[in-house]
């Protein structure tokens, strides 16, 4: 298997028998919600979709797999989503096959999907790799494999000698997890790759704060000593345990 990182997504391509392009959490239609919270901006769907289509064109995958939160509003479908979602899906389908590992924001989206596009809530194993959103316990069939998940919106902060030099840039966390609390454990280790959000306005969660966090069962199961951190272009930053701490955390 060989991954390719597309920083402009962020997106990652996994190639085994087939080429699968993966993005997480694009949150199409978020502007309606921003509007309700006092932030008045035009729909970013066009530019977000254009960015996605550009990555698809570059990667030329057999599948696009979206790791959940394709749409934004919970628990219903907004006017913006109703009018935009069909077009977004149509344009994606024109380029490649499409799979969605449904996320907690994807309520009401089924009506726009075609048969076979929607993966099970607890994820699916495709071509030897597990894919799921990440807010639930993964399906037992995924254990013992590499699992890609979204939901966490991981970001990296990098500090230099004077202060923080790079704040909140999207990044990947690769780590083994301990799935023993969920049931029988397979012989092979289970690794997860937390994929950063495609949604560019995501506030994001500092990678250092994800392991052990209540945000998901996965986060709680991460074995930090196996963790490794990458930037969105695949640049290796450091082992998780050696992430340079906030320089002022030591006060």
């Amino acid at each position, binding site marked *: *298997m*060989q*991954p*390719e*990182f597309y920083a402009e997504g962020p997106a990652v391509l996994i190639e085994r028998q087939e080429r699968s392009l993966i993005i997480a959490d694009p949150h199409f239609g978020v502007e309606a919600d*921003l*509007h309700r*919270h*006092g*932030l*008045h*901006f*035009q729909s*970013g769907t066009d530019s977000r979709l254009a960015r996605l289509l550009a990555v698809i064109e570059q990667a030329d995958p057999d599948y696009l797999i979206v790791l959940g939160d394709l749409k934004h509003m919970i628990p219903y479908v907004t006017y913006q989503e109703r009018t935009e979602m069909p077009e977004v899906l149509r344009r994606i389908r024109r380029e490649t096959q499409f799979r969605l590992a449904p996320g907690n924001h994807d309520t009401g989206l089924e009506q726009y999907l075609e048969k076979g596009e929607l993966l099970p809530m607890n994820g699916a194993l495709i071509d030897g790799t597990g894919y799921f959103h990440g807010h639930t316990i993964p399906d037992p069939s995924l254990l013992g494999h*590499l699992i890609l998940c979204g939901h966490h919106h991981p970001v990296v902060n*990098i*500090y*230099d*000698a*004077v*202060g*923080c*030099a*790079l*704040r*909140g*840039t999207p990044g990947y966390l690769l780590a083994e997890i301990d799935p023993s609390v969920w049931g029988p454990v397979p012989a092979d280790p289970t690794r997860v790759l937390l994929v950063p959000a495609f949604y*560019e*306005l*995501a*506030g*994001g969660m500092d990678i250092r704060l994800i392991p052990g966090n209540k945000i998901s069962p996965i986060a709680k199961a991460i074995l930090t000593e196996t963790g490794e951190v*990458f*930037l969105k*272009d*695949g*640049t*290796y*930053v*450091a082992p998780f345990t*050696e992430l*340079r701490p*906030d*320089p*002022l*955390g030591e*006060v």
Partner: protein
Amino acid sequence: MTSAIQELKDSLHPKLRAVLEKRGFDEFSEIQMRAVPKLISGINAILIAPTGTGKTESALLPVFHHMLTDPLPDGFSALYITPLRSLNRDMMNRLEWWGAELGLKISVRHGDTTQNDRRKQATHPPDLLITTPESLQAMMMGKVLRKHLAAVRYVIVDEIHELADGKRGAQLSVALERVAELAGEFQRIGISATVGNPEVVGRFLCGKRPCTIVQVPVAKTLDLSVKFAGESFGDQTKLIEKCIDAHTSTLVFTNTRSVAEAIGHALLPRGDTDVHHGSLSREVRIDAEDKFRAGMTRGMICTSSMELGIDIGQIDHVIQFNSPREVARLMQRTGRAGHQIHATSNGMILATGFDDILESMVIVNKAMSNQPENIRPHINAADVIANQIAALAVERGEIAIEKIEQIFSRSFCFENAGPLIREVIAGMEKHYLIRTENGMVITKSRARKYLSLNLSMIADEKKSMIFDVVSRKPVGTLDESFVISWISSGAVFIARGRIWRVLDIDEDKIMVEPAKNAKGELPSWEGEQIPVPFTVAMEVGRLRRLQNFADYRADERSVRFAEKVLSEMKKNRSITSTDKLIVLEDSDEGVVVNLCGGHKVNETIGRVLSILLSARYGTSVGIETNAYRILLRLPKFLRAPDVEEVLLSLEPEHLEAILILALKKTALYKWKLVQIAKKFGAIDADADYEKISMNRLLDLFDGTVIEKEAFRELFFSSMDVESAKTVVAMLKNHGMETKTSRLSIIGAEGLFTGRDVVVPPGEDQAIIESVKHRIDEQDVILACMHCRKWKSKTKVARVPDQPVCPVCGARLIAALKPYEEPAFAALKKKTLSTEEREAETRMMRNANMVLSSGKKAVVALAGRGVGPEAAARILNTFATGDNFYREILKAERKFVQTHRYWG
């Protein structure tokens, strides 16, 4: 009674004459004599005269005359606009009597006016309405009140200098044109303090209409001096007490509320002083004013809240504690003393330190020779345009764009706005405030709500209190837009000259603890900071150079203190910076650039230097500025000569472009951008920013008119780009020189209050920095491939430039990863398996590389998944420095994308 006075009286309406008679008004002040006849003729005018010489009457007598003479329309005949509610109240108290005597209805309307009074004003409109610019905005939203405004014939703007200088004024200038739309042309009268450029104030009030300036200079009635108040606070308050004791009634002005409080607290036991500033409740302030007016207190400690003409009775002495920073401010403040015609105003500055003494001396001289600063109205402020377009759209439902352009073009602040107006309209449409159709702007449902929340152009932001959990004391306040764009748990910022780390954020409280490391990165916005202008700071530099203290009006102790500091400098072999010399000094914290440029110029040059240093050396640079020095927080390897080199390489014409780059990532810019986005209606005043990356959201403003306005305002208000260019040009033509030195006592003077950190351009730098750190910390096994007896585990950072085997002295040392240790041990066997032989070959290659390239090879080989082949490729590029690490990163990235890695 002279004939001129009689003539003036005769020109007035008989009823008005009778009332003057009754009041015992038998003398007119100079301003009244000159202004009244002109105003009766109906012309527009700006009146400038010392406080307390009856400026208000000179504006109102002609207006009253006309209101009595001409038939009164139904509605407001006259508007009297002041910048403050307290002035409104004061004015109401003064005019009540006149109204009753003349049979004119006078009323006041502002934020504090009760619903009941508002209703009365709508059903029975007063003839003269006293109001604020913001209430005027609110009134134009209502149908009935708009009808009353259609009757306006006279508008008086009091303390107009205060408004003309800001965005409130820009908004008011459009509001006046909107009133003119309703009422037709009216007479415009402005009442102003002394300013350097009264003609601009006139154009601000009237646009292209003719406007006359009637001016009685303040300076000739001023008597000012500087006194050294001692270095301890105890000495200082003692001196203040002495001054209070020597006069019947004294005003003590301070520059900040906290100093006012501190002095007020020290004087509390006397029982005859009060404190007066903007943070106190209205009741407390009114009580203090009343007591002072009644002579129950003889000292009032106050801030700019007392600067404007609130009538608090007789004042015979004014003390300014610390330098007033600006000439106009000193003239305005001391002008409050001697509230009588022909009396001189006595004022004294109590100065407390070297900078303070010299600055005070310069300002006193400039005030005595009548050189106040110029008023600078905001020209083409895009957020004001947006605000007033929304107002027009709400007022009319729909309005032609051409009509909008026509209204704006009559205001001085927007007469050359040109295509900007359509640009703003397009922007507003994008944020769903209005829509357009066939050249018409049409209101949307949001617009009314937006408008009622944005009647004021004052960024009256929610303030969050900073609370130190260690000392359990509040530290100060931060503006909300600053908090949302920068503050999060763990974030660090500087406030009150100290570095704080955020522990937790409450509703409106930020819990912090002191942070030890000098790694601050955020500014706190000091709302109360009054900037020292370039002209004043440069003259301070000149005074430092010439040391002609005798030409200034300071007491002996002040001069002695200043001379002591200068001779101390000489003794230490320090160099004093002047108007012709910039001294760059090395300190533990970084480099201090001593530049007598004033706050705004130093801010400008400091930011330019920091972005250039940051770009050149790939490090973050912290900056802090005051009027006479810039502190650049730098890594240890950067010293004064490095900064000097960058300073001397500057070209005046490049400053603006560099600044745009420099500001983009700063807290200052983001703070301003949020503020303007709010005024523009893109972000609601009460927006919820949770779960959103504010930084990325702000990227959406790239290239928009909102971004443009943020830069315009920063360059105009927070910086002084023009004067900074002058400084740079002087460095070029040797009108100014530079020198480097160790930290001097002048360089170290003054508490630094924190500002910003400039981040190196691009993310690249930070990443490389972090990779360097990671590799340095990495474990490496050094193993001798010659004798094969020695191996040692260490960290990459500790590996010498050319490792040598301590056992056999060979330099054939392999740099292995910890997991390769067993493979090295296996080499001792007599016979090796195929795999072991392969490993041996790899290790030999590895060692040969270390032999020829030394530590550089060790570093390359320490890269994640970098074997001898990849390391050879890296070394073959001959890249050095950052580029070398870039090559390592590239190799690592490649490795991550291999099958081996993912299994």
